[in-house]
């Protein structure tokens, strides 16, 4: 029997690619409508794993595919090292410059980059910071691009930084200088009250993302078939029953079954359930970012140990980073981990050395967790 080369299309921790993305047609349409002209801000809210990043990616693809819309689309994951507002502004500008290069083949000159960075350092207004980039693009293309900022994981920023961000975005949106979509776990328009907290006034379109419907689950399950996997009838219904249409859980189940068996069957799903269910339950219970009580701490500790066992160090660190008391150390450890992985990939360190470093990082995580 010859082996067939088939790819596993499911991956719970990666945003859905164009091939695997299903459903959300209405949501995409509404978001696109909200983002088509300058001066709008939309929010996408929903719990972890519901598909916010995948939706942002899908919207980005659609915007790029629309030649009538002179958009310059920059995606920014806010969980990655935005320790201060000026750094965040700088990353925003960098993302836009990268977009200009990748989408339109224009590389901003050094003077423009320096000017932009200097303005970000001064915490200038977004409109001012982006102006040199847009003016450069206009001078070369005679197109006045609309900057569309897709900001993911807003909930990672913490209350003060989120308010800062919303406030600086507010000015730019009001002046029709940018359009943006913010994705996060909490409903941004229902944020805490403050005299100058502008989220409620910023968002003109709010989307609460819900799980996939049964039909959309069927569509997702059918993707295995298109990749050459045999799919047993009734699998989609069972997958929907097991996960309630939650995309992360769906992907987790489906990926897991395809890793361990040759086909997607109801039996396979049922067999994996006892192992998967407690993990998913623990994973999603640990989601809230509020201060942990003793029971919450025990759950988190268990979850992190589990993640370390699975060698998912970055996921473990992300969970730690969500807690204010561990944020800084966890951020440093993430950076250390990424450097180690990058060095290993580029051949700067040997695999065994990298492995030792990862073990050290895991030890540091546990030390951090237990004080």
């Amino acid at each position, binding site marked *: 029997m010859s082996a067939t080369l088939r790819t596993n299309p499911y991956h719970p921790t990666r945003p859905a690619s164009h091939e695997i993305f299903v459903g959300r047609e209405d949501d995409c349409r509404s978001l696109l409508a909200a983002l088509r002209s300058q*001066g709008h801000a939309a929010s996408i809210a929903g719990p972890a794993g519901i598909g916010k990043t995948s939706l942002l990616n899908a919207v980005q693809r659609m915007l790029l595919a629309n030649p009538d819309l002179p958009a310059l689309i920059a995606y920014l994951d806010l969980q990655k090292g935005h320790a201060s507002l000026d750094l965040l502004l700088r990353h925003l500008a960098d993302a836009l410059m990268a977009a200009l290069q990748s989408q339109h083949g224009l590389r901003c000159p050094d003077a423009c980059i320096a000017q932009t960075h200097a303005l970000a350092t001064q915490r200038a207004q977004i409109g001012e910071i982006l102006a040199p980039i847009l*003016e450069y693009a206009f001078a070369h293309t005679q197109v006045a691009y609309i900057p569309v900022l897709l900001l993911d994981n807003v909930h990672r920023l913490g209350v003060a930084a989120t*308010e800062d961000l*919303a406030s600086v975005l507010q000015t730019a949106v009001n*002046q*029709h200088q940018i359009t943006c979509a913010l994705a996060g776990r909490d409903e941004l328009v229902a944020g805490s*009250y403050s*005299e*100058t907290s502008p989220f409620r006034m910023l968002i003109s379109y709010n989307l609460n993302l819900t799980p996939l419907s049964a039909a959309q689950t069927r569509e997702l399950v059918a993707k295995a078939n298109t990749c050459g996997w045999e799919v047993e009838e009734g699998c989609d219904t069972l997958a929907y029953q097991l996960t309630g249409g939650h995309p992360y859980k769906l992907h987790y189940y489906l990926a897991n079954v395809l890793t361990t068996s040759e086909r997607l069957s109801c039996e396979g799903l049922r067999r994996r359930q006892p192992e998967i269910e407690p993990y998913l339950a623990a994973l999603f219970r640990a989601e809230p970012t509020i201060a942990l009580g003793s029971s919450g701490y025990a759950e988190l500790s268990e979850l992190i140990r589990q993640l370390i066992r699975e060698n998912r160090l970055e996921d473990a660190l992300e969970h730690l980073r969500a807690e204010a008391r561990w944020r800084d150390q966890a951020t440093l450890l993430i950076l250390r981990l990424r450097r180690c992985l990058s060095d290993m990939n580029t051949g700067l360190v040997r695999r065994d050395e990298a492995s030792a470093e990862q073990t050290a990082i895991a030890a540091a995580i546990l030390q951090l967790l237990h004080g």
Partner: protein
Amino acid sequence: MVLLGGYRGNFWEVLCQALAPGRESPPSQSLARALVESGALVLLLDGINEVQDSDLQRRLVTEINALTAPAAPTARSLWIVSGRVQDYEQSRLRLEYLEARRWELQPLTADLIYQYLASAFGDAQGLVLYRELGQNLREVCTRPLLLSMVFAVYQQTGRVSTGRGALYREFVGLLLRWGDERAVDSEIRAQLAGLLPEPLTDERYAALAEQALSALAAAMVTTLSEWGTAMKYVAAGLTTATAASRERVANLLLESLVRRSVLQRDTFHRVRFFHHTVQEYFQARRLIGVPASELIPAGGIPAERREAIIFLAGLLPDPAPLVERALEFDLALAFEMLHDLPRPVPQLSRRLAELLWERIRLGSVTGNQRRVARLFQRVAAQRGQSVEELAAEIDGAKSRTQQAQRLMVFYSELGDTQSQQRVLRGAMQGQDVPDDLLFRAASTACSTGDDDQAIDLYTRYLKQHPTHAVAHNNRGFSYRRKRDVDAALKDYQRAIELDGRAPFYTNLAVLLDQMKRRPEAIQQLEIALKKDPASASAHFFLANYIEADDPERALSHRDQAVRFAPHDEDLAIYLCELADLQEKLGRYAPAIRSLREMIALDPTNAQVASRKGRIATLRQRLDEEQRTRSTRERLQEQGELPVSVMAVEWLKAAGLKVVESTAIWLLASNERQPPTLLPVSLASEPLLTGALLRELIDSLPTAWRRYGEVLIVTGTDTLTTEAHHQLAALQDEYKVALVTALDIRDALLKSDIVCHQLLDQARKHTGRKADPFAHQGVVSERTEFFGRTDDLRTLADRLGQGQQVGLFGIHKIGKSSLLAHLGRRLHVGHPEITVVQVELNAALRSAEDVYNLIIRQMPSADDLPTTNLTAETFRQTLTAFHRRRQQERPGHRLLLILDEYAYLIPDHTGQGRVQDFISVLGLLKALHQEGWLLVLPCGRTAALNRQAVWGRDENPFINLLHPHFLGPMLREENDALMQSLGRRAERPLDFTPEALAAVYAETGGHPAFSRLLGSRIVSAASGEITAGHVTAAIEALLSKKDDYALLTAIYDKLDEEEQHLARQLAQQGPLPRQQLIPADAEIERRKRVRDAIDNLIDITVLVQQPDGMIAHRYGLLRRAVEREIEELGLEI
């Protein structure tokens, strides 16, 4: 000479008439052509601007271009065409072949005025007459027309009227008769006659003109008024026409007065008097009856009122109380008044002389009272006395020596050494100087350069008065001249010890410099300037010493020296140095101004010709520089340019090219794929009405109609409601976009991309829309902005008067949009104000962040420092910017708009974001107190104006602002918004009156609420909209949380007590005030509730009904609060 005012479409007709003036049968056109082709004629075509009709104008220019084309035989004759520069610039018509040799006539300079008078009356009489004119009349005479009128008045009366009031009456009378032979406004007069019940005789016309001018001058707050506003002012002052026709009569009168040059109209359709003093003359009438103490307050009168008060004295039957008040506070003003009175009042001029004489005696630093001394001389001359006669009259009771002493002081102030010696000789007994004349005798010796004698006399004097600082100083001066530096140093140091006055430090500095100790000299001058920042000589010497190393700083001191020069002689020296340095630094325009000032200061000086030569050279350099400058740079410098020039430049910046043009249309093309062509019309009319829009569209060249899209550029910022409706209706025929010249100006000053965005934005708002009510963010487009006429006027007037204003109001009521339009309104009405607007946000942490933000938004921010700004550097930067602008725009002020000011101060929990916000507020207040900075904070509450302290810090802004609470729109404004936007819908809406009433009842005129409701209506209905549709839309709106999120957001933004009140009133309906304040609560809580009620009323969330009950102002908001209570089960 061909008067082009008579052109009717055929140039040869007017030429033939001009060739044989007054003859019934003019020469034939073929003869005229033969003459022109022969090259024998010099054709002077006068007044191209007098051809008013745009078609005729175009035809005339086409004819002239054809006749002056180099290959045309008619070009053999010499052609000279004259016209007003501004009119020529404004029309897009170009005299293609004559343009290359264009000459612009500048206003007359003082020396030319003198030459004119000297050539008319001879040198001696011309000089007398020139001096008679006085400074203010000389200013008026810089216009040849007016100079010739002064001349005409002089010819009629045989003298220059001492009263300027009388002169202006004559002036205006002449202007009203001027141009009759050219029939400059015969059509207007005919239309005017048709609107009036009585025949329009010349007398009647003059009376009407006077009424119009008086009403206009009285109502204008500044020297400029928008055309529409001016029309209203004039209409309100007319007593003759019927109410219905008053505005039309006013419009025609304004037009007529513009053509007769009594008024002027600029690019932005602003009206001004031909000279500000004429406006003041007419304004003076409204001051009759105002008490003298109010007219001349103890703190001094504002400069802009000075002229009016002088005129008023001449208009009053008994000017004595007013003049006496002036005698108390402002002697120069009293002199001007007395000079202006139709009849002399000897007792008042005697009193003035006494006060002047007294002041001269008090002066101890020679030369500081020279202007007073001059004034005394003029009073004496007015009274027909010599100075010494008048002085003897005043000092009659004093001894001869005392009289001589005072006369010597007087002459030393004037620098008249001969007279000083003469008086001294007269007072001396033989060769001996009497003791009580020692000081004056020493001063005289010093003035005449006899330093030995001066030192001897001062030494004798100092033996008797060893602590007399001035004597030490003066002796030091003589020692220095004799190069006895040690003795001089000792004397100067002693003078400083005794009395540390600025001039002593200055003298010491000069000595130190002479001793090659320049750094110390600079130090001493800096001390002198700290003691007296207005010390002209200290500025002068400091500039001398630092010029080589730091010419820019030296320039600033030279400016100051000129500003504070105590008398004309010093002024001449300072100006000379200033002009040299300006020239050296390439500041040609200011250098020309300085040279002109020098000429004006002494127009009969022999150096006038060489100075004019220098001006000509500088002018050439300036022109060279100008030619290489872009339109943008010119715009930056001059503030504005003709609409046509800006429009073409703007289209170019936005990526379009003008490929074709007609008299009123341009065809612009983009070069991208696919290429598009856009017809653009320039509407120069002062008011954009519906009829005008229709006319413009009808005039679109047939060949261009196929492009389906039209852009209208309008010079006005005023769109009538009917124009809004017409614009909506026109969208069925073409996509009609509209931008204003002010939008274009702002975009040009920013960047190409902003120009493109403006064009793009304007085009996006054309055609029909599924939901025309939807609009996010600031409403900056003129076509999307409705109402707010009164708010804009009030704010602009207050700011124009220099008042600090705060703009407060509920969220989304339109504050930021109003500010955007206020900026434009100020540019039109108060060009002397530079507007800098910043929006604060949470990114601001420190005072430096705030200063940086402000500086980055300043015009020409590229030249300003934006890093490491301390309070001091911020102050210096702002001050330097203001001074530069002040030179270009007298009376310059900087308006700093702080939008979202709440980010600057602590919030209601006491948490502050900007750490040293108190120092920012303190600095802004200090700059405001200098008189040139206005701060306009904008936010939800008036806390900045009301809160006395934050923690331990006192609020520097407490009660500093005039609060302007932005309320909802008026009913008619709201109706206009609903109707106009409804008509722009793909499925147009037509609101019935009941439906409009129902909308207003629910939204209360809150623009965002009305748009929200409009969006809901347009999504569900079309055609005729009834009250039933509105009710259904309200229900639908409130059924979906996301749709009414804006309303709950506004509720959420209220503070705790305010939310409580909103809930209470939503559930229980209107309540009396007392019932809202819980009687059993602690006093602090009751205070909080009381303040919350007041704030909610101020920001119009609540309203106090006529029956005294407090209720919700906005029905929709009340309903949203009700929903929140239902859904969340909130307690009251």
